Each structure stands twice: as C-alpha cells, then as structure tokens.
C-alpha cells in the first residue's frame, strides 16, 4: 500500500511494480496455505489414565496428536477443558512445529471439581503458515466422556463407617427397627422368664391357661436393595448442596455398612421411567466395587439459580415478570418453567401409579423372589416419584417385605443467605404438612420413614435405624 502511494506520488513505475511483487508474495503465501490446509490430516487420541475418577482427585490425561499429512505444521494447540475442571500439573497447550508424519504427546493432570459427566470436545488448533502471514483456527474433534464419581472422602468415610457401625441389632430390644434376618417358625416350648412378649403364644394362653413361647429359627439374611431416585427433581441443584450427591454418598456408605455385616446388598438407580443401572444383591468380594461403579452412572446434576428454586417452591404458577427481558432472564424463565413442571409431577396428583419407574421395578423384583423377603431402602426427595414410591410401599407391605424410605427434604437443601420472610415460612409449613402426610401414608403401608437433610450423616442414619427411630 505504501509503495503504491509512493509510486503514484513520485510517479515512479518501479514502486508500482514493487507493489505488484508484494501482492504476488501475498497471493503465493495464501495459495500455499490453502493447499497445506487441504492436505492437513491431524488426528487426536486422548487417553485417560484413571478408569474410575473421583471428584477432587487429580486425573492424568494424555493427548496424542498425529500429523498424518505431508506437510509440517506450525501451530498452537490447546486441549479444550470442560467446565469445572482445572489443571493441577503439566500443560494442555503446545506451541511449535509438528513435523509431517509424526506425532507429539501432551500430558497434563486435571482435577474435576464436581461429580458429573465431563466431555472433552477436542483440541483447538491455531495453525500458522510458513511465512507468518495467515492464521487458521480450527478444532480437531476428539470427544472423550468421563463420568467423575463423587469425592473420594465419601468412599473413605464409608470404609471407616463400615468398621464402626453395623446395621443389625443383637440381644433383647423392644424396637424391631431393621429386620435384617428372616425368621421361620420352628416349634413352641414352655415359657422361660425373659422371653420377649412378642414371642409368647397368646392364643394358647387363653386356651390352656399356660404360657408357651414360639421358637423361630433363623433362615437366612434378608437381601437388601438400595434404590436411588435419579429423577429430575433429585438432580436439580440450586446454590445449596446437591441432593443427588448426598444420596450417592448415603447409598455408598449404607451399602458398605451392610456389606461389612455380610448382608447381601444391591443397588438400583432409577429415574421417572426406567432403571438406569442395577446391581443385584450379593455379598461377593467385589460387590462394593460393583456398587461404586454402578453409582458412576447417576446422571449429572441440573444447575439452577437459587432464586429460581425459591419462587417455584412457593407454588407460583408463573415466574415473576422481569421489568426488562434480557437473554439471561429469558434463559432463567425457561429453567423456571422446566423446574415447575418437574415439581408438579409428584404434587397434588390423585392418579394411581402407572406401574412404570419405581413402582414397576418393585413389582418386578418382588414377583421374581416369591416366598422370600426383601429389605428395600429408597433414597428419594418424594417429588417426581412420590406416587410411585407410595404405591411401591403398599405393594411391598402386602408382600411382607420391608421398605425404608430416606426422604431428602427438598427445602433443607436450599442455601439461604437471607432471613426467612412470611411467605417462606408459610411455604415451609405447607411442605412440612405434606411431609407429615407422606410419612403417615408410608407408615400405614408398613414402610419405615426417615427424613434427612444435608447435615445428616450416614453414621447418624444408621444409629437412628438401629434404634428404631425410623
């Protein structure tokens, strides 16, 4: 440009010709770069060293980049990290020349912060031509998905807890909180002082005027199945603790406690419709590993702003109309709508269960183990799957199996940074009434019920169950 202006101003033809020469260089470089780009063949292979990554634990990532094309490429490469992932060591970037038909490896360590599915989309490549005149941005796709489990502390806590707490009770107790063994009637004998009153044969007393005691034999350990509700309401997370994460921790720790007492334990993850993953009850050596592996399949949480959760919990039909509609607010309105639909799924409906989801799973399970008893522990927030759980509890009670519902109270998982006002208190009162109603229904169906919040630990839960407080 400068040479063209100089040529015109000084009326000098050589400068105009020089301008022509510069344009030729530009055209040449561009054509060459386009040709190189057409023949570029970059391939990316990502290798995760950890097969079972945990939240908060470093995980090694190796990215092998192969330049299979005929030209060397000068580029800046960056392996794109998913959200909530940070680099602990090494680098996910490379800048330099990748010779033709050769490969390079980038190795680094990332720390996933939360339990969820992380997706590595690919490697961002900023390719530069030989002369430094042109740059081309592209993404070399190499999709890698990893399911990051809950934090490892939870697993360690489960191990420690298993050595300390045991679910079964021994000796005399007035509470039959957790029936962990199936008893079969054997015969009767004369009453010996100290026998439990529930074992006395009261009908014979009226007939023979003598006290006899029923004797049972222990037939075997009752199998336990832990159901984790993975419905949408469980996965919705505001600013507080995630119900889903808490339920995974509870499930993992309770199953460890049960397995340590040689109780056959299994896990079933299910959403509103189908079973996501299932591990049949067993006491095998690798049963806990199978349970932990199965819990990886819990779907990732749905993150929603706290204010959105608040107005929905108030039972409002519509979100408060904002004065000006910005893109963020319209997104919020969409998520409001979504959550209100989820919450309305389990509330105020009078329909009986449709036989799908939890209800259907319980029926299938009990139909398969005719003549045997089963202990079912259900970890749920009783929102999306309320009717299915109530129906399942009734069916379970009819079949003689036992059900324990661990109810994660939705309101307790909200992180409040402001004091409660009157509408909040009214809403909490309404939800408490609803919880009491649910509890009454479950107890009528013969199920045990325990209400937990984010502060409740498995140790406290196990003690409460043992002491018959459930």
């Amino acid at each position: 440009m400068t040479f063209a202006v100089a040529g015109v101003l000084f009326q000098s033809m050589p400068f105009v010709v020089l301008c022509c020469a510069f344009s030729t260089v530009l055209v040449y470089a561009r054509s060459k770069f386009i040709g190189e780009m057409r023949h570029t063949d970059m391939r990316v292979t990502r290798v995760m060293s950890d097969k079972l990554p945990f939240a908060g634990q470093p995980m090694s990532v190796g990215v092998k980049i192969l330049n299979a094309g005929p030209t060397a490429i000068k580029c800046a490469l960056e392996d794109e990290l998913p959200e909530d992932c940070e680099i602990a060591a090494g680098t996910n970037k490379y800048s330099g020349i990748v010779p033709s038909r050769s490969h390079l490896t980038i190795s680094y360590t990332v720390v996933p912060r939360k339990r969820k599915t992380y997706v590595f989309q690919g490697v961002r490549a900023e390719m530069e031509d030989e002369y430094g005149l042109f740059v081309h941005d592209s993404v070399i796709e190499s999709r890698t998905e990893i399911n990051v489990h809950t934090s490892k502390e939870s697993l360690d806590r489960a191990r420690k807890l298993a050595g300390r707490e045991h679910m079964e009770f021994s000796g005399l107790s007035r509470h039959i909180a957790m029936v962990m063994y199936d008893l079969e009637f054997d015969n009767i004998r004369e009453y010996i002082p100290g026998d439990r009153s529930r074992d006395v044969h009261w009908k014979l007393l009226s007939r023979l005027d003598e006290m006899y005691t029923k004797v049972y034999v222990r037939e075997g350990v009752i199998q336990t199945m832990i159901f984790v509700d993975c419905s949408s309401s469980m996965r919705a997370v505001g600013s507080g603790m995630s119900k889903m994460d808490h339920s995974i921790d509870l499930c993992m720790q309770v199953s460890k406690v049960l397995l340590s007492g040689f109780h056959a334990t299994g896990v079933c993850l299910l959403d509103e419709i189908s079973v996501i993953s299932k591990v049949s009850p067993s006491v095998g050596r690798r049963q806990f590993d199978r349970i932990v592996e199965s819990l990886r399949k819990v779907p990732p949480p749905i993150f929603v702003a706290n204010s959105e959760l608040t107005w929905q919990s108030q039972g409002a039909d519509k979100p408060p109309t904002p004065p000006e509609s910005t893109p963020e607010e319209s997104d919020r309105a969409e998520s409001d709508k979504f959550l209100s639909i989820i919450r309305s799924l389990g509330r105020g409906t009078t329909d009986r269960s449709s036989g799908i989801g939890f209800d259907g799973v319980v029926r299938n399970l009990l139909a398969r183990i005719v003549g045997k008893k089963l202990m079912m522990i259900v970890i749920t927030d009783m929102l999306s799957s309320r009717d299915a759980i109530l129906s399942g509890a009734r069916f379970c009670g009819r079949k003689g199996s036992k059900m324990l519902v661990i109810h994660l109270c939705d309101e307790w998982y909200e992180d409040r940074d402001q004091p409660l006002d009157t509408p909040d208190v009214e809403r909490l009162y309404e939800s408490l009434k609803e919880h009491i109603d649910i509890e009454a229904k479950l107890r009528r169906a013969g199920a045990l019920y325990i209400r937990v919040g984010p502060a409740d630990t498995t140790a406290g839960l196990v003690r409460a169950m043992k002491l018959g407080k459930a």
Partner: protein
Amino acid sequence: MLVQFAASMVLILVFSSMNIYTLSLVALGGGMMLFAFFSYYRVGAISGFLLVTICAGASAEIPTLTEAGPLMTATVGLVVPIVGLALFALSSEFEGDHRFRQKAHVLIAGVYATACLASVPISVSLVGAMLPSLSSRLPGLVEMAFVLLVASVGATLLVARETKPN
C-alpha cells in the same frame, strides 16, 4: 534458501543502476537479512528486506510497461528477485523442514504476477485494436492505475478464499 537469496541479489544488481551509496545500503540490507535469517529473527530479516527493496525500486529504470525492455527489467530485475527475497525474509523464523510439493500455488502466483505486469500492454493493444485512431502511448499515471487496479482486484479475489482443513 541461500541460493534463492544469492540469485535474487544478483538479479537486482544486474538489472539496476546503483551508485555507491545505494550499493552500500543494499549490502547493509542483505547483511541484515542473512544475519536475521541465521538468528531466526523475522523482524530483522524484513527490515533488511525493506532496505534492499527501497534501494532496488529507487535505482531501477522502468519508464513504461508497454515496451519489451522495461517489461523484462520489471519482471526479471524487480518482481522475481523481490518475491524471492520476500519469501526468504518471511521464512526466517520457520525452523521445520517445510517442503510442500505442489505446483498449484506457484502457478497461481505466476499467473497473477504476469496478469499484473501484462495488464498495461494488453490494455494498450486492445485499445489500439478497437480504436486505431487513438495514440497507443498512455501516460505513466494511467499505466500505474492499470497495474494497481489489476493487482488489487486480483489479490482481493485470490486472498479472500477460505481455508478448509481436511
């Protein structure tokens, strides 16, 4: 690359008439280019290249592009060596073995340079064929306008193409 540099410098020196000052500046520019090339320093190489280019442009004698002699001087004495030197200077920071064996881009650049330089003779011959009564001699400014017009339009069209990776 060094052969390319040497050949370009020789062509510039052969086809231009330089005095001692211009020669010293060309030598300085050439030295800078070589030094920067071996130091993998592109900015230095381009500075030297600009020095050589300005000296070559100032000392070349091309009054018109409608005659064979000046046209030859413009092509062989200016465009070819300047393109060679420019590529030499620009590739000074590239350390890898970069040999992209394709003739397409050389051909495109060659056709483009030819079109720019031949735009004036072609225009003159077309005007002469269609309007023989007009003088075939165009003012220098008009010739420059033709060259710049063809150069800018051609460069815009060729450079604006999208790069599509495989």
